C-alpha cells in the first residue's frame, strides 16, 4: 500500500470514503489461544494450509515448507483440521 499516511484531524480526510491505510500494523496474533505448529517431517508441501488460511498468515520458508506468521495467526485451527497428513498440531499458548 503506497499511501500509508495516518489521519490526525478531519481536514486530513480525503474527499471520498476510500480507505488507504494498510492493516498490517495490527498484530492480530495476540488474539490466539491455540497455536498451530508444523511438523516438517510430516509435511508434504501441498500448501493446502496456505490456501485455507483466512488470516493470510501462512507463507513459505527457505526450504519450501509452509511457515506460519505468528504476528497475525488468530489460531482458528482450520489449517490443522485440513492438513491431509496431520502435520499441524494445535498447542495451547503459554503451555
Amino acid at each position, binding site marked *: 500500500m503506497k499511501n500509508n499516511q495516518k489521519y490526525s484531524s478531519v481536514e486530513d480526510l480525503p474527499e471520498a470514503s476510500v480507505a488507504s491505510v494498510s492493516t498490517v500494523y495490527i498484530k492480530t496474533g495476540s488474539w490466539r489461544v491455540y497455536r498451530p505448529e508444523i511438523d516438517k517431517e510430516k509435511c508434504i508441501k501441498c*500448501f493446502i494450509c496456505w490456501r485455507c488460511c483466512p488470516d493470510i498468515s501462512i507463507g513459505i520458508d527457505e526450504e519450501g515448507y509452509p511457515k506460519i506468521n505468528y*504476528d497475525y495467526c488468530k489460531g482458528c485451527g482450520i489449517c490443522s483440521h485440513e492438513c491431509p497428513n496431520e502435520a499441524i498440531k494445535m498447542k495451547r499458548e503459554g503451555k
Partner: protein
Amino acid sequence: MNRAGIPIEEYVCSGHSACPGCGALLVLRYVLKVLGKNTIVTSPACCFTAIAGMFPDTCMEVPLLYNAFETTAASASGIEAALKIKGKKDNTHVVAFAGDGGTADIGLQAISGALEDGHNIIYVCYDNEAYMNTGIQSSSLTPMGATTTTNPIGKEAGWKITPKKNMMDILVAHNIKYAATVNPSYPIDFVKKVEKAKATKGFSYIHAYSVCPTGWRYQPELGLEMGRLATETGAFPLYEVENGKYNITYKKKTKNVLEYYKLQGRFRHLSEDFINDVQAYIDQEWQKLILKEECSKK
C-alpha cells in the same frame, strides 16, 4: 502462477479484524486472486466493513469504497459509469461485495436496477445467513430452522420456519448473463467460476457460501468441513447459470442434512420432525435444479 490449484498473488493482507475462522475473508481473498490488482471494490455496512478495518484502515491492496447499506449495486454502477467516461473500464473490474442482508433484503432493488441497466459489474454476495455484524438477526437468506436473535419465541418456535430466498432464481429471472454459487471449501471450482464472471461482459453474480463460527455456533476449525457438508447434503448446491443454461458443478448429493445441521449450535433445538421437513424441502429443491439442468440441455 498457481499454488495448491489457486493463484499465488494476494490482494488482501493480514491485520484485518475478522473473527478467527471467518469465511468472508476467504471469499474475498479468492475473488481478488482471480480479478487481480485492477479492481475496485465497493462494500456496504456488513461484517466485511468491520473486518477490513475502521476507516481509513483497509486490509486490501486494491481500492475499497464504503457505501450505504442499500446502495451497493448502485454504487458499483456509478463507479463503472465513471470508469467508462474516463475510458478505463476495459481493464478495470468493479466488484460489489455485500452480505446476505445487504443483498437479498435491503439492497435487492439496487441489484435489480443495475442488472436491468446492464452495468458491467461483478456482484459478490457472501452469504453467512444472517445479519452478523449487528448481532445475528434473521435475514431472508437465513436457512430453515436456524435460531437468530430475532425469531419470535414460544413453545413451537424460536427459529426461522421459512426457507432461504432463492437469490439465484431471482437474478436468472432478470436474464443475467452469468450467475454462480461458490464455496471456499471447493477452491478450484470457486476460482473457475470467478474467471467466468471476469470474462462476462455485463452484470455477473457470485453467491458465496460463507461460514460464520460466531453466528452459527460451531468450533472455527470445522469451517471448511462445514462447507463440504453444506454442498454434499444439498443445503448449498454448487451450480452456475450461463445465459439461462443451468450447470450443476457438484453432483454428489450423498448426505442427509442432519449431518450438516448437528454440528451447529444454531440448529441444536430442532426436533426430528422439523429436520425431516428441512430434508424434504432440500430434496425437492435439488430435484428442481436437476430438471432445470436437463431442460438447459434441450
